[in-house]
């Protein structure tokens, strides 16, 4: 009976019901799309940073992240290589030797990050080979060939075939100097990275830096990077106690925090919208209930308890909220799914926000069922919460008071 009564009441005040329905639906769509866009852009920034160079996880000597100096190198890279090779959860891995040195062209010098890499391994571990824009990528037999960032090449005024001098210090702190020929130029879109980084075949750089069988860290990808916390913890158990396995959440703490703050402000902004929606639904429910005060009074006089009245009004809002949630979620989820596959393109945004780690003009949405579910449920609960006060207020009236209500 409750259901029939509720349905009749909904249909009786079509205008108000439709407005409430549309408002809730619109809010559900807006919330799902807003969060999908916010999460999508954050995921893209983090994914770019992880996949372009950093990698999903590192193995390094404990203390290296606090003081990334030669004092904290992996002294026996071969032993770590064996451990990582035996771990079935690891998809691919490679050692890197990172150092800083002065790179000098004919006219200009710049302090840069020089990294010794295993060129063939980086093909799957990072986006370095794919970011080639000029010349050639390194190979495992290269000697004094250097692969440098596009911004760095511009700063040094060098091009393919140009000679670049490197002056740095080897791991025994003696001066390490060599001449390199620019073999390739890359552009990842990460502005700072392209402006400061250069890569050399590791076995050759090791001869210059006296770092044979040494590495600053190993970078690696797991088969299942979605369960990276568990995978990192399991790897940690296999490593000797002086080494640590850390994943991108720790490696990119500042970036993760920045995205968290951005999300926080995003939620605060949209919560103001929720306040208004909450009040509008409450006002509509209040008006709707009070225009039926006499009818409610009559029902009470006929023997219905305040619990029954609450049940009847609750079913009304439940029907409207459920319908708006279902339709809103389907539309919102479809939008999120569509724009995850076909991201929104804002021309020039990558150039404008390059210093903020934006590498592409494409802004994808993030289609995540769990997120969509809690977004939709939030609006659903908001709808239900909005009728508590109006229903409680009308239930305070006695049958006679309600029937006399003008």
């Amino acid at each position: 009976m409750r259901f029939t009564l509720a349905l009749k009441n909904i249909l009786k005040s079509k205008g108000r019901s439709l407005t409430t329905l549309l408002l809730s639906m619109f809010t559900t769509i807006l919330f799902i799309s807003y969060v999908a866009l916010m999460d999508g852009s954050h995921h893209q920034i983090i994914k770019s940073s992880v996949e372009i160079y950093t990698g999903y996880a590192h193995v390094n000597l404990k203390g290296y992240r606090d003081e990334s100096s030669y004092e904290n190198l992996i002294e026996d890279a071969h032993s770590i290589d064996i451990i990582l090779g035996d771990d079935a959860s690891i998809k691919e891995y490679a050692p890197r030797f990172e150092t800083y040195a002065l790179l000098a062209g004919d006219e200009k010098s710049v302090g840069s990050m020089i990294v010794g890499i295993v060129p063939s391994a980086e093909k799957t571990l990072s986006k370095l080979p794919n970011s080639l824009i000029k010349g050639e990528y390194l190979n495992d037999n290269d000697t004094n060939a250097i692969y440098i960032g596009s911004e760095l090449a511009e700063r040094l005024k060098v091009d393919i075939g140009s000679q670049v001098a490197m002056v740095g210090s080897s791991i025994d702190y003696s001066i390490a100097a060599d001449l390199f020929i620019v073999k390739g130029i890359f552009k990842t879109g990460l502005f700072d990275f392209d402006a400061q980084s250069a890569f050399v075949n590791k076995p050759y750089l090791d001869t210059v830096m006296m770092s044979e069988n040494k590495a600053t860290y190993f970078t690696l990808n797991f088969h299942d990077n979605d369960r990276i916390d568990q995978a990192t913890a399991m790897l940690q158990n296999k490593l000797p106690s002086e080494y640590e396995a850390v994943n991108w959440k720790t490696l990119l703490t500042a970036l993760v925090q920045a995205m968290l703050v951005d999300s926080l402000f995003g939620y605060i902004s949209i919560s103001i919208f929720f306040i208004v929606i909450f009040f509008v639904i409450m006002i509509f429910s209040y008006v709707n209930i009070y225009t039926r005060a006499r009818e409610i009074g009559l029902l009470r006089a006929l023997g219905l308890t305040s619990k029954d009245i609450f049940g009847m009004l609750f079913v009304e809002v439940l029907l409207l909220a459920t319908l708006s949630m279902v339709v809103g979620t389907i539309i919102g989820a479809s939008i999120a799914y569509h724009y995850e596959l076909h991201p929104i393109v804002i021309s020039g945004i990558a150039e404008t926000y390059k210093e903020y780690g934006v590498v592409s003009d494409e802004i994808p949405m993030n289609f995540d069922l769990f997120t969509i579910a809690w977004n939709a449920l939030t609006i659903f609960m908001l709808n239900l919460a909005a009728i508590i006060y109006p229903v409680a207020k009308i239930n305070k009236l006695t049958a006679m008071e309600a029937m006399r209500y003008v």
Partner: protein
Amino acid sequence: MYRHLAWLSLWRRKTRSLMVIMMIALSLSGLLGLQGLYDGMITHLINTTIRSDSGEISLYTKEYRLHKSLDYRLSPLSKFEKELSRIQELSSYSVRLQQEGLIATAHKSLGATIKGISLENEQNFGQLDAFITEGEYSFGKGNKGALIGSALAKKLHLTIGSRVIFTAQDVNAEINAISFRISGILKTGNPALDEHSVFVSMEKISAFLNLKESATQIALRIKDTERISEVQKELQILFPHTDVLRWDELYPLLIQMQEWMNIFNLASYAIVFIVAALGIFGVMLVSVLERMREFSIMLAIGTPYKTVRDQILLEASLLGVAGFIAGAFLGWILLFYMSTAGVDMRSFEAGLELYGYSAVMYANMHLYYFFQAFLAVFFATLLSIIWPLRILKKMKPIQVIQGKML
């Protein structure tokens, strides 16, 4: 009379009116708080950039910003200083000479920029001394000390008294090195300075780079910020072969962020108050519908339609004004708190610093926020009564009195 009627009608249904007032007040105070906070964040970025680097206007040689080479330097300095001393609109200026290179400790090296400055000039220019977080604002005896950006100091594990060696090419493309002791650590909030810069005395760097009477940048502070464009034109005439650039031309991202923020604020106001208008509409519609007989009698006894219309308008306006006053008051309290005590976000410090934001954020408070908010409430109120007035206009008073039409 209609004023009195409007007032009485409004309080006939207290709960309904209070709901509308609360809806406007809460959403308005939230919007005011967010607007002030976002505005404060961007203003902080702009201020620290102007104070620590660009001034309101900066002078460079035409090619310097593209090549960052000492070949493109401002020289002789005396010529520039002579002309600048004649310009009344300038409050101060700072002459800087910078070169990129490699900074090294005994254990680690990083790419960095060395900047030659005059401590006294920088103090007058942007109170650089106020950014000191450790040590003192001094280059020590014989100018052998250096000030260093906080993030760079952290990466190199430098403390006061630590020795660093800076290696760079001089004007003749010879690679030279110079040693300094850290006398102070600066935290400006400008990531380019905090992460990459070392400040040394102008005399010391000039000797190191084999230069005399030279600078790479002259940054200017203007007394009246309303006259920046005029001063820019005047300077361009004085120095036709020099780039004379305003801060917003040097940092277009900041102005773009400010524009995005303004668009975001306007969009938020529009969305929130269109929905709020629906809430007011709900109340006004019911309020009109339940008094149709009352209005019909008024019209039948000769009350002009204009009087009835004004009564409805006044009722809605009173609701809007009451909501605005309550919202503006709450918003003012919120803004006052956030502009004096600040919002402590130190738990997200690393993320915020990554983009140059302060960990304790201070809101701005401007009169125009409240004016903008008033306009939004005003339009929402007007929008909400269009439909109820239309119903009233179409109503046939005699039929309504006879109960034939409602």
